[in-house]
């Protein structure tokens, strides 16, 4: 424990140097610094201590203490620590320095806080990210004085496709057969080469955070959280439950944690199989697509058997889970896994031997390691670019500390690497489920009595199939006071700029698909095009990286 002490001392020292204070609660280090030191502290955490930037959270704490706050969430992956860098902002004319120059990945979350809470960030170019263009100025929905059901009168304005003479414009979306969710791209092409992209997201911003903070109760939010994403919803509800449990310091039964981990892995398997199918479809290999989805159906059935639903399992509650895994289900699960593994290995070998699959995936959409690090990308996108990070191992939660598994890492950073990371992870996931089923302890699955004190902070990262989900909770009376969600695609979309730059148009669909984007759960993106012909993809709103 000597080493851990030293590491904690390091953070305490940092806060002292910055004229702030630090406190430690469990695996979370809370650092509060004055706002003029914020940039320095963030840059030190990010560059010197090599902490991983996850997201920033703006909060309207005026009813509590009269201030707005902004909290930058870092994780120290090597030591399994969460580091929260917080600063208070004056309520009149809230202004805080932007950390984007030091931490480029903070771009969107700052703009989101600006839109939703009205916090201005100095030292950067602001732009509207979340709210539609016609939304009234000065109305910031996440402020506590705005009722959740308030609907301003806005008239929709239709936007014209921008046309230029030098480049061809290909509008894609908001509805397009190749897109699965409403988002809008404008690809600027010269011949078959993409020279620029404009992206407009947030068509499906649903105000989930506001809803969770106002209309629902702690237990109900579990079900809402599960609906953030249609594919990896259980990660969100687990992440939320774990965050609240961490904040309230609840002692959740071990058996419940095992069941969570098992179901999380079931979800990862089905999600990766789904992605493989989609990737094959994009590559025109429909036979592979159909067969992958055929074997995926076994997993869906398994999920239904374990939880009662094919998707949106609905078994997470604060304090545990609602469905137990009995001996019969355990045997059935093992049987399904055995069959699945056999079929999967045979199938994937055949699919990867199809010449077009390999040829189109290798060498395209390259994301170099440096860019990946700077942008704090998540999940398979990071692991394919040589960043060895996986929250299941680095920040162990649920029952992952009882399983041993390999984290596949590739260094090429191309579409093939991202494909192979997922191919390998699938096998690991099956092994994890087997191990956990073997070790699952006896006992209750749900905490019957508990109390959630107000004003506590809990933050949790859960490794979803697409990367780390982050949930940040400040507890309140009967419901969360602040609930911040960040889906992994939120961090990964900026990397598309690097991947698509100067690449043939024909690679674009695969490259976009390769981060396994989930627009409905992210929907926080904007790519602004700057004038001029050779502008690179401005996926980060004009920010130079």
């Amino acid at each position, binding site marked *: 424990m000597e080493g851990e002490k030293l590491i904690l001392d390091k953070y305490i020292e940092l806060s002292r140097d910055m004229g702030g204070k630090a406190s430690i609660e469990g695996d979370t280090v809370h650092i509060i610094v004055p706002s003029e030191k914020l940039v320095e502290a963030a840059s030190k955490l990010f560059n010197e201590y090599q902490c991983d930037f996850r997201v920033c959270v703006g909060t309207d704490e005026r009813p509590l203490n009269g201030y707005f706050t902004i909290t930058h969430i870092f994780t120290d992956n090597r030591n399994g620590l969460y580091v929260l860098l917080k600063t208070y902002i004056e309520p009149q004319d809230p202004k805080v320095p932007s950390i984007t120059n030091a931490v480029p990945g903070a771009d969107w979350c700052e703009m989101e806080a600006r839109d939703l809470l009205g916090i201005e960030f100095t030292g950067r170019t602001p732009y509207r990210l979340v709210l539609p263009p016609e939304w009234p100025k000065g109305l910031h929905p996440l402020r506590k004085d705005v009722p959740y059901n308030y609907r301003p009168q806005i008239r929709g304005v239709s936007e014209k496709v921008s046309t230029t003479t030098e480049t061809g414009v290909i509008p894609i979306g908001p509805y397009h057969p190749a897109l699965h969710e409403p988002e809008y791209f404008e690809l600027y092409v010269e011949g078959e080469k993409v020279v620029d992209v404009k992206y407009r997201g947030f068509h499906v911003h649903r105000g989930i955070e506001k809803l969770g903070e106002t209309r629902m109760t702690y237990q*109900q939010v579990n079900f809402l959280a599960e609906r953030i994403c249609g594919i990896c919803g259980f990660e969100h509800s687990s992440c939320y439950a774990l965050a609240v449990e961490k904040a309230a310091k609840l002692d959740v039964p071990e058996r419940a944690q095992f069941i969570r981990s098992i179901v999380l892995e079931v979800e990862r398997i089905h999600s990766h199989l789904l992605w493989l199918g989609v990737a094959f479809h994009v590559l025109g290999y429909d*036979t592979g697509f159909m067969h992958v989805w055929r074997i995926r159906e076994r997993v869906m059935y398994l999920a*239904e*058997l374990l939880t*009662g639903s094919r998707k949106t399992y*609905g078994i997470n509650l604060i304090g545990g889970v609602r469905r137990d895994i009995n001996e019969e289900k355990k045997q059935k699960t093992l049987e399904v896994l055995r069959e699945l593994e056999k079929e999967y290995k045979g199938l994937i070998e*055949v*699919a990867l031997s*199809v010449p077009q699959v390999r040829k189109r995936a290798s060498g395209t959409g390259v994301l170099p390691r440096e860019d990946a690090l700077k942008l704090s990308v998540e999940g398979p996108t990071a692991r394919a670019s040589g960043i060895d990070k996986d929250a299941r191992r680095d920040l162990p939660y649920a029952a992952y500390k009882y399983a041993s598994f390999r984290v596949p890492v590739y260094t090429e950073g191309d579409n093939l690497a991202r494909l192979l990371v997922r191919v390998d992870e699938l096998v690991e996931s099956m092994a994890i489920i087997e191990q956990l089923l073997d070790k699952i302890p006896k006992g209750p699955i749900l905490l019957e009595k508990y109390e959630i004190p107000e004003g506590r902070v809990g933050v949790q990262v859960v490794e979803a199939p697409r990367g780390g989900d982050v949930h940040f909770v400040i507890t309140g009376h009967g419901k969360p006071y602040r609930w911040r969600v960040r889906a992994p695609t939120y961090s990964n979309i900026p990397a598309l700029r690097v991947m698509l730059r100067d690449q043939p148009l024909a690679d674009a669909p695969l490259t976009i698909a390769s981060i396994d984007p989930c627009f409905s759960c992210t929907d926080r993106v904007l790519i602004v095009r700057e004038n001029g012909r050779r502008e690179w993809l401005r996926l980060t709103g004009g920010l130079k990286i």
Partner: protein
Amino acid sequence: MSFVKKIIKPVEVLVVASKTGRVTIKYPFEEPWISPEFRGKIEIDPTKCIGCGACVNACPPNALEMIESEDKKTLRYFVGRCIFCWRCIDVCPVGAIKGTRNFELATNDPLDLYDYIVHNRVKCRECGKVTGETTRMLKYVLEKAFVTENYNNKCPDCRKKIFINAISMRRTGPVGEKT
């Protein structure tokens, strides 16, 4: 040789296909593949429900709503909002809600999507004001708790009044209307 093998490999998908056969079914003419654990539409037993509203409080998407009127309390279930989480089943004190495996809920008539259970509200024996409870709830409480029917069928205001009266009687005799 290995080169040829590599080229031939994709053809193996034919082997996979012939081994698997057809997996799709002629739904709706054949039974879909549903596990025994599947959570489908719920059914509320109107004879058992006491109108306590516990399910309404638990239901995450407000699929269950309690509509209150002058002398009625109506529990409304709207399938269109239901997420089939069965939280209502967990919390119902009398086990009035049953889960089914039914998921084929499409209909031509929107009214089919609603279920109503109407309860009568209790009138206070003392002042005649309508209270929040339903008649069945009172019966349920009578069975479960040590209260007399005489206490039970009065509204909280009257109970308070009677209680205060009783105490003050013991001390100083009856009190006036003002207290």
